[in-house]
């Protein structure tokens, strides 16, 4: 069983890390951050969970979703590129602007594309982390 402080850290830090990931993702277009970095932060959150709860628990919870998630990410990215056809060509960005009271909304296909990057990075990093932290029955040969 992992040490107490790790489990405590997990309780406190994991939600924060996920929020930070979302924050980094959302601000990415205008300030340091973005899908790639946010993906790494989210992967770090999973890493913390693996350390504190053991890989089996995490694998049972998210393992089977990882490969589909990478696929969805690629579809998001490719879909964002294809949506460009609306404006005439492949990969041409499409933006939507709206004013909702004080709220200024500016969303476009690059954000969808970035979401794709985020999903692929989370999925790939987490599956590597899970794969490498797997406990084998037989010890390694040295």
């Amino acid at each position, binding site marked *: 069983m992992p040490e107490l402080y790790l489990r405590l850290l997990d309780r406190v830090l994991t939600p924060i890390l996920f929020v930070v990931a979302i924050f*980094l993702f959302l601000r990415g277009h205008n*300030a340091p951050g*973005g899908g790639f*970095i946010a993906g790494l932060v989210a992967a770090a959150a999973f*890493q913390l969970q693996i350390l504190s709860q053991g890989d089996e628990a995490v694998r049972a919870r998210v393992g089977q979703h990882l490969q589909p998630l990478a696929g969805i990410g690629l579809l998001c990215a490719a879909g964002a590129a294809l949506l460009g*056809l609306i404006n005439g060509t492949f990969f041409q960005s499409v933006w939507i602007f709206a004013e909702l009271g004080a709220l200024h909304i500016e969303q476009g296909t690059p954000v969808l594309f970035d979401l794709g990057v985020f999903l692929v990075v989370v999925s*790939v990093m987490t599956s590597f*982390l899970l*794969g490498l932290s797997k406990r084998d029955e037989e*010890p390694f040969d040295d």
Partner: protein
Amino acid sequence: MLSFSPLLLSILALIAVSPLIWSVRPHRFRHFGWIAAIPPAVITAWLLTQIGAVSEGRHVTAVYGWIPQFGLELAFLLDGLALLFGLVIAGIGTAVALYTGYYFEDNPRQGYFYSLLYLFMASMLGIVWSDNLLTLFVFWEGTSITSYLLIAFNDEDPNAVAGGRRAFLVTAAGGLAMLFGMIILGENAGTYNISGILTAPDLAASPAFSTAIVLILLGAFTKSAQFPFHFWLPGAMSAPTPASAYLHSATMVKAGVYLLARMHPALNESPVWFWSLLIIGGATMLLGAISAIRYFDIKALLAYATVSQLGILVFLLAFDSEYAYIGVAVGILAHALYKGPLFLIAGIIDHATGTRDLRRLSGLLSSMPAVGVTALLSLLSMAGIPPLFGFIAKETLLETFFHFAEHGGGLLGWIVLAAAAVAGAFFVGYSFTLLWEVFLRKEPSAQDPAHVHHAPSFSFVLGPAALVMLGTLAPFALPWVDKSLLAPAASSIGGRVVEAHLKLWHGFTPVLMTSLAAIAVGALIFVLRDRLRAILSRAPKNLNGIYVFDKTIYSIYDLAGLSTRLVQGGTLASQASVVLLAAVAALSYALLRTDWARDLPIDWTNSASAAEVILATLAVVAAIVTVRARTRLNAIVSIGVVGLTVTVFFVFFSAPDLALTQLLVDILTVVLLVLVFYRIPPATLPPIRFRTRLRNLAVSIGAGALGFFLVLFTIGEPFSPRIADYFMLNSAPLAHGANIVNVILVDFRGFDTLGEITVLAIAAVGGYALLRSVRLYVRPSHLDSDQKPAKKE
């Protein structure tokens, strides 16, 4: 703004329906086939409404910009040839979709099959409607992939998987050759637009024209199962029968023929074209026709018959006459209308009796009359008996060669005519054989006769029966079929307007006499069939494409194994040394050729700040500590320090995004390393031999020097400020983002990123497979028989 042409819409709709149909789990519904047939039926109906316009020369076109800066576009064109093929694809697709529901009744994988079928249909329509070589290539590969998945549909059957892999490797290799050919053509013509290439002046005089033809022929020949690549098609018969009928008889294998027909006006004047098509097509025609009779499995027999038919079509395309154009058009339609149903019937027989073995079957005409009549009509059509559609196809074929022989062909012409007649006679021979052995005779030849224990329902037989009815009625509406379908298609093949001239009855011409003689010889073949089977089954076993192909593929595996042992044997350190030394060797050649004084204008006056010096020292010290560490944990921690100092460097040079990324990657790496090494005993590192240390030192110095000089050259290169300025200026107005790094990643250079994340995802799948240590291949037993037993390791 985007306007959807029905051409693009059909393809997109099929792609969109594909996952949907999988997710509704259609095997739960008894009559799902009727619903699944709707999308192709709608496309067929739309195509039928276009017949009038297209036959008058008003083609449907649709062009969408893809990357207009490079002249890349999605271009579709519906002319006579595209319409004929479109109708065959969508029409037979309708019948096959209906049939599939009953073929896979209650099978939970029905939905998966449908989803592949629709994807295939979309790709196939894409091939024949594309007016751009590159678009055509993408769809072409789409059919290769769906075909692979369909052949290997029964993925627990090693034969099916091996057959699928063979088919895929052969067609994909041919496809790559074709791509190179297309690029040569496109660059020479200055456009990748097919209509543009067909009308490009002086294309034949352009450089590497013959090379381009040969490469394109390779693509077409592999796809259309021409000798010596024909072996993949019989191997593809492990696919479920609806797929065999649809892909490996009616449509996909004709993609090669389609490509040849499409490019015919541009390429046919080259002697390379004429002789390749004549020899390869002719050889395939005869080989397929003669081999077919030897097989007792109905599907195998039909597969070889299909190979022969494809040979005939390629053979015809060698000739540049109106007879040949019409012959190809009528051959495609007639073959689709009799061979497709025959495959479907083979599936029904399998379903009803549990076997496809000719020796065990008999008298099915009386036990399944509807199936029997359908089969009777299609077999007579295959034999070319008047007044069926197959007869007209054969007449046109023979007419082409008569015309060729009488107008300048000379001796070659008569040889060609004789070869076609021989193939025709074999067609008659095995049509009669199937008809007699499966449907008419009272007693089977084998001991354990098969019985009908699962009579097919009406809807199951409806698909093939409807196709056969069309084929039977077509000759009676011949003027209309000719004028509205065949002549427009022939015009596309010829590149000039071809008038309709087909007739059912020409009088007692030499062509009819030859045709009757072929039927007579065919009857003789039928009578002597058992003797022929005995002779043909004595052919040497290793004299076939499958053996040669597998031998080649597994020698590649062996070679890969050998190189792995040579390069990647031993410890991680020695493997890394090989990689690093290779990089050093490759790049030091470039370094040796540089003019140091000119390429390295180092500004010695630009001194480093105190902070930079401290950081650099820290990085170097941490690196030395890593190397000298006694325990793994120490090494991991100090390598983490190296990473962190680099992060701080990025901060100094105001690259916050890079710094963040580096920081996160560094953290994750350290934790990962701890995770992995934590469980490897012992905790202290074993001592390294002196010789190994020397080698490591040499490699490290080499790699370090390489990195040093690379960076030096990179900064020595005068950096174009225009790029940076462009991004700075345009990031906010064009891409609505203030973070230039992110804007470059997701917008300006988004295509690169798409490639990178694709590679990342593929790497994850590969890593997953490696971590599960899947055995990648099992050597087939038939290759081991002629070798010494493997050495024990």
